[in-house]
């Protein structure tokens, strides 16, 4: 069974179309796709949002038997698609058998608000500092997993979230000097007594730090899934970590932006009953010479 995992598409149909054209149609029945959030930008393009999302799913459906997704912080919280092959995993669980391999999937969408710069046009954030919010997510995830596992012994349990767990492939460090400069600019601004509180908030938002969710980390300790797929923290995209038998994949980001160097990425997992192998790949023309490659993609 083949699993394609992507995230942070931001409505870029052209790149997705390149990805889909690479997938072999004859394997469709053996393939599922996972989208770990930020499918399109709801706030920036509210009129076309639903349409863009539908096109993305339609495109992927041509080569994948099933699509599982969670919305990201730029997606609509209530994103839903009327199709039995397209499943929203946001605080839901699902059991499926594909190509002789059984999977229990569970997920949570959106992102913790501490992971976002203030003023971003986001639509789905949660504040895990508030106990009732954090407990609510934890409870929903536990119940969803229990339901998905009910009466089954799946080969793999897969957690799909948009946000990484705290401490795993979630460190945000400026990759370009531009970011460093902007951070520095904000950090160096004079603090007016009145604006002090706001300034403090800004500072929290720009300092290089871990952006992951502690709530998700706690759930991992309880659920111990085999695989955790997430996106959101772009400059850690492509990172694979293993901890306590959980394999973590930061699959961000399919869109060429915001970081040209880490974009155009997708993960392929080949799952068998005895184990799995994985490869990260980029949607680029690999046969270009190095100077042409730089010219085209940088």
């Amino acid at each position: 069974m083949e699993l394609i995992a992507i995230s942070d598409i931001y409505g870029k149909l052209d790149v997705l179309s390149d990805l889909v054209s690479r997938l072999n149609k004859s394997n469709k029945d053996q393939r599922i796709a996972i989208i770990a959030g930020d499918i399109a930008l709801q706030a920036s393009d509210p009129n076309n949002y639903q349409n863009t999302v539908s096109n993305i799913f339609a495109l992927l459906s041509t080569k994948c038997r099933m699509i599982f997704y969670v919305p990201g912080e730029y997606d609509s919280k209530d994103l839903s698609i009327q199709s039995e092959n397209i499943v929203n995993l946001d605080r839901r669980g699902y059991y499926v058998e594909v190509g002789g391999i059984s999977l229990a999937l569970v997920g949570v969408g959106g992102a913790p608000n501490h992971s976002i710069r203030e003023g971003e046009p986001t639509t789905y954030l949660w504040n895990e500092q508030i106990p009732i919010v954090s407990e609510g997510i934890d409870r929903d995830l536990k119940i969803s997993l229990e339901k998905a596992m009910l009466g089954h012994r799946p080969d793999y349990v897969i957690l799909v979230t948009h946000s990484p767990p705290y401490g795993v492939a979630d460190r945000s460090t400026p990759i370009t000097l531009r970011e460093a400069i902007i951070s520095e600019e904000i950090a160096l601004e004079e603090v007016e007594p009145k604006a002090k509180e706001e300034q403090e908030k800004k500072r929290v938002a720009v300092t290089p730090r871990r952006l992951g969710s502690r709530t998700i980390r706690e759930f991992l300790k309880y659920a111990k899934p085999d695989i955790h797929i997430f996106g959101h923290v772009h400059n850690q995209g492509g990172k694979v970590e293993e901890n306590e038998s959980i394999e973590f994949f930061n699959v961000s980001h399919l869109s060429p932006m915001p970081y040209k160097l880490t974009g155009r990425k997708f993960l392929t997992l080949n799952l068998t009953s005895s184990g799995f192998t994985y490869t990260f790949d980029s949607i680029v023309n690999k046969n270009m010479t190095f100077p042409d490659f730089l010219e085209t993609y940088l």
Partner: protein
Amino acid sequence: MSALEKKCNPSESLELRSYQVELVKEIFGHLSGGKINVFVSLPQGTGKTIIALSALCDLVNDNSLESVLVLLPRKALVDQWVDRAKEMYYGISLLKNPTASKMPAYETRRWLKYLQSAGIAMTVQSFKNYMKKQSFKEQDFDLIIVDEAADLVVARDFIEGFRMSAYLRGLEKWRTRKIFLLPYHVSEKKIKEMMRKFGNSTLIRRQVEGVDALQYTVKDPITIPDPLVDQIAQVLDEKYRTIRTNVNRILTKEGVEGFRENLETLLSPRTIDSVKKIYGLSEDNVQQIQTLITKYVLVQHLKKWFLYSNREELARSILASQYEVTQWLSHEDYKLNKLVEVVKNYIDQRKKVYIFAQYVATAELITEYLTKRLNLKPRDITIVTGLDEDQFSKLDGFKRYGSILVSTPVFDKGTDIPQADAIIVYTPPLSTEKLFQVVGRIRGGEVTLLAYQGYEETIMEQVAEELRRAFAEATGGKFGIDSYL
């Protein structure tokens, strides 16, 4: 005055060398004689901090000092300074690292008053924060000591923007007596610039006879043939130059002056806004300039990733899919292999090695690779980077029982590592001046530089040459390393 009558006394084990006694007298004389700012520039290893502490002690005993403010660039250095003061002098007690957010100025004043502390030692960053709130006034202190003040000099380039001068803004207006301690390699011209800024200043700058000249052997760089990395670096370099030329062309066409040396500053929203207003740049031009500069920054990053063995980042980038890069990533890093060989050679001779890497990612990679290839135990190899809070305790581990220290330029000031017999420069430094300071910490020994054949080889040869000249001059020459940069 007998020792019992004095408020401050050196510890029994402390014995100042004769030149140190003379220098203390000289500083004391200048300060008593009405000079406000005394700049002291001495070679590494001459005990600048001890000299400052001794002058401080004399002023306390002279009853002309109640509170001192000691400023240093980093928290770890503040801790070290305060501990050293406590060990060496009875009667000098310093409040360590108060911060504006946790301890308002009135509390620090109360602390000083009731505990009869000699003063406060803090980082320049904390000082800046206190100053923002206008918490301290010049009347609060009788003396200010700025140790490791080399960074007060005007910033050379954009990347090294974190200069102390930015943090000490306003200090030049204070009429409080100040002692600035600088290493000898800072050029006299630069010190004079600083002295002009501060006014009513004097300079004590000298080589010290009687201090053993440190013996360094800077070997020719060991070159590692890897045609692919050289070819890639050349392409990136060419790309970098082309982008710069294009940006310069636009700037010239639009009549924009300056910025050629530090194009990156044009990415700052504030700077570009003011340039836009002054020169009437169109939105299209701004967009074009910023896109080009962003590319040029990315090219710089990529070059570093290739040359500094940052395979982890490269493997996650889209470049990993390009066939030449795929090929390069498919084999082990030749430079790392060479490093294993060189380190093994030192370890077999029971020598301790200090490996210098400019970036944290490279230092981590080196540590991981050496551990695996040489089958090292965690106590054998110590990695210290700017990310570590316990830099000095980790360093202590290396000094006592470790064999290999891998570090970014964190130990460039205030700490000696005489236990290291050799230093290996794995990556070219951002600044040779800084590397000179880093190498100076090992107090003599062998300096080995590793370079990919071709592009990097030329850079490392220059670095080796500059180090040789700088060491020669530091032990008897007339000019500092700055003359060559």
